[in-house]
């Protein structure tokens, strides 16, 4: 099984890749990697569960792609009137959208839609790959009340839906019919009252089992001061980078603030007592995926001598032209495909 943190690092690499380029060829390559991974995950789900148990929204990702690309292209063309290839012009007296509608604005909008779809698709895959239980487990220890609340809520959702159906059946037997919005009241109020009664008995049983009131982060007084200090560093650093020429100093303060906040929350979390029931291991599969991620990051962010990074910066305006393509960047981007290859091998071995 691939480690949860490996998945997070992988998705961070996808987000970085989608953020640094507007070259349609690279974006399509990234989307192809995502599509192949999605296919393998769906196959794995069918092999292990007998059906695709994807819990995501009941709309195909490709419909969402079509919607995002179309909307983005239309909005951009309507709002942004830049570009030299004019398709047609709307009278400037038209409020908001008056002016030239250009091919360049359409294409730039469509590219933005493609990037947005890539971000959406990457998270769609993450939701498919990681169970709710694994996602809750990564909530940091400093936030254990939040983790407990989330666990309770997720446990109670099926109960709530079941209770809703029971109430509806009981009210139907009494002759209740849904005619208007007010007719929802006899369903909502018992549902709410029942839920609140359950909350009271749950809190009593939690207290009886020794889950005391949480005052942990008030007792850690140094934590509060350091959190405040980290926030101030972050705020001042960001303001400096935005409003002054002290870019380096501002960036340093910004990064120090982010680092301080993360370290303080980690240290506070360490002082929280906890029990670990399932310990996720790091395996050679994680090492392979991380090496793929390292290849992608090095291609996109580091100045490697054999790479033409200019091809990443594709600019549609003022006149559209064909995008460039560096095969080395293309090969290194295929590092994102590593989870798909590993899941494919695992699927083959299970089928055999």
């Amino acid at each position, binding site marked *: 099984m691939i480690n949860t943190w490996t998945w997070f690092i992988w998705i961070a690499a996808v987000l970085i890749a989608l953020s640094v380029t507007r070259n349609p060829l690279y974006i399509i390559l990234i989307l192809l990697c995502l599509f192949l991974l999605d296919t393998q995950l769906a196959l794995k789900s069918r092999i292990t569960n007998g059906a695709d148990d994807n819990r995501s929204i009941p709309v195909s990702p490709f419909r969402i792609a079509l919607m995002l690309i179309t909307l983005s292209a239309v909005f951009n063309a309507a709002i942004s009137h830049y570009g030299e290839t004019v398709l047609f012009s709307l009278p400037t007296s038209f409020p908001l959208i008056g002016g030239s509608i250009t091919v360049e604005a359409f294409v730039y909008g469509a590219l933005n839609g493609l990037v947005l779809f890539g971000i959406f698709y990457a998270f769609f895959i993450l939701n498919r790959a990681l169970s709710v239980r694994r996602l809750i487990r990564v909530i940091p220890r400093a936030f254990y009340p939040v983790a407990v609340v989330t666990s309770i809520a997720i446990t109670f959702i099926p109960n709530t839906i079941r209770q809703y159906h029971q109430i509806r059946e009981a009210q139907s037997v009494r002759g209740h019919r849904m005619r208007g919005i007010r007719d929802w009241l006899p369903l909502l109020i018992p549902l709410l009252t029942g839920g609140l009664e359950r909350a009271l008995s749950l809190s009593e049983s939690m207290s009886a089992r020794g889950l005391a009131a949480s005052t942990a982060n008030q007792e850690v007084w140094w934590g509060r001061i350091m959190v405040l200090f980290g926030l101030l560093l972050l*705020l001042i650093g960001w303001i400096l980078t935005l409003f002054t020429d002290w870019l380096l100093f501002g960036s340093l303060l910004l990064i120090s603030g982010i680092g301080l906040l993360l370290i303080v929350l980690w240290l506070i979390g360490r002082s929280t007592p906890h029990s670990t029931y399932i310990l996720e291991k790091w395996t050679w599969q994680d090492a392979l995926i991380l090496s793929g991620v390292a290849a992608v990051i090095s291609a996109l962010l580091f100045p490697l001598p054999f790479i033409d990074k200019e091809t990443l910066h594709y600019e549609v305006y003022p006149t559209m032209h064909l995008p460039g393509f560096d095969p080395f960047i293309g090969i290194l981007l295929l590092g994102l495909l590593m989870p798909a290859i590993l899941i494919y091998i695992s699927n083959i071995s299970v089928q055999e």
Partner: protein
Amino acid sequence: MLPKSIRLSSIAIYSATFILGVLSLLYPFISSAIVQNTPTGQAGFGHTPLMLTVLLSLSLVVLIYEVQGQVNTKVIALLGVLIAINASLRFIEVGIPGPGGFSPIFLLIILAGYLYGGRFGFLLGALTMLVSALVTGGVGPWLPSQMFAAGWVGMSAPILRPFVQRTSSYSNSKNQSSRIELLALILFGFFWGFLYGVIMNLWSWPYFVDPVGQYGSQGISTIELISRYTSYYLLSSFFWDLSRAFGTALLLFAFGIPILSVLRRFLHKLTFQHDQTNLQEHQFQAAIETVLKDSIHIPQ
């Protein structure tokens, strides 16, 4: 740490996270002024949409850390159950989409925030978004801004209380709701129906529209930027948000008073505290003896 210094540090943390959150959302407007001032006219580090998501996530994390500090088992259990009810409503919303941006989840967030306080409202709003995203597979970069906006809805609801107390015969102990209270809540829900959309659009604007179309180009005044954002908002979301605003107002009108009275009834049960420090040993023994006498019949 003394209670006064805790309160002061709390206020400072709330203020800092609020400023950071608002600045992150308004950064495209700010960034235009900066780009004009830079020699190259190019936006740099700190101006990217990804930076917005990172800063917003961090301020959300710190705010949740601060707010969760004073929850007890009753609040944890109550939050868990109310979030389950709210997430179920959102589950239904995803399965059977209502008109436009209509969403039933703001009803409970507003009413519970109004009655149980800003901290509770914030956690209910933010965690409803988190849990429903986990359940429906909606985890993504949009989640921090959704959590922030929904949290702010609940956190801001108690600001209605002083107004309602001054203008009506509102009485918490009598479990009564006045017409003024209902009207205030309806207007509040209508207002947040729009504001939620505006906040979510501020988040999506830098991702959706090209830099030339919004900020980034030299010589654009703030008024021009606001007009560009307005055109983006009116084109993309106005009618969507209108249905959310009307939907929330309608739900508050139809269910506001009955739900408030249920929540008020439970408020007394939830605020009950067993004060062990004032319970003397002889009082405790006397209480035990009374209970035993009442419950056990000893034959003579």
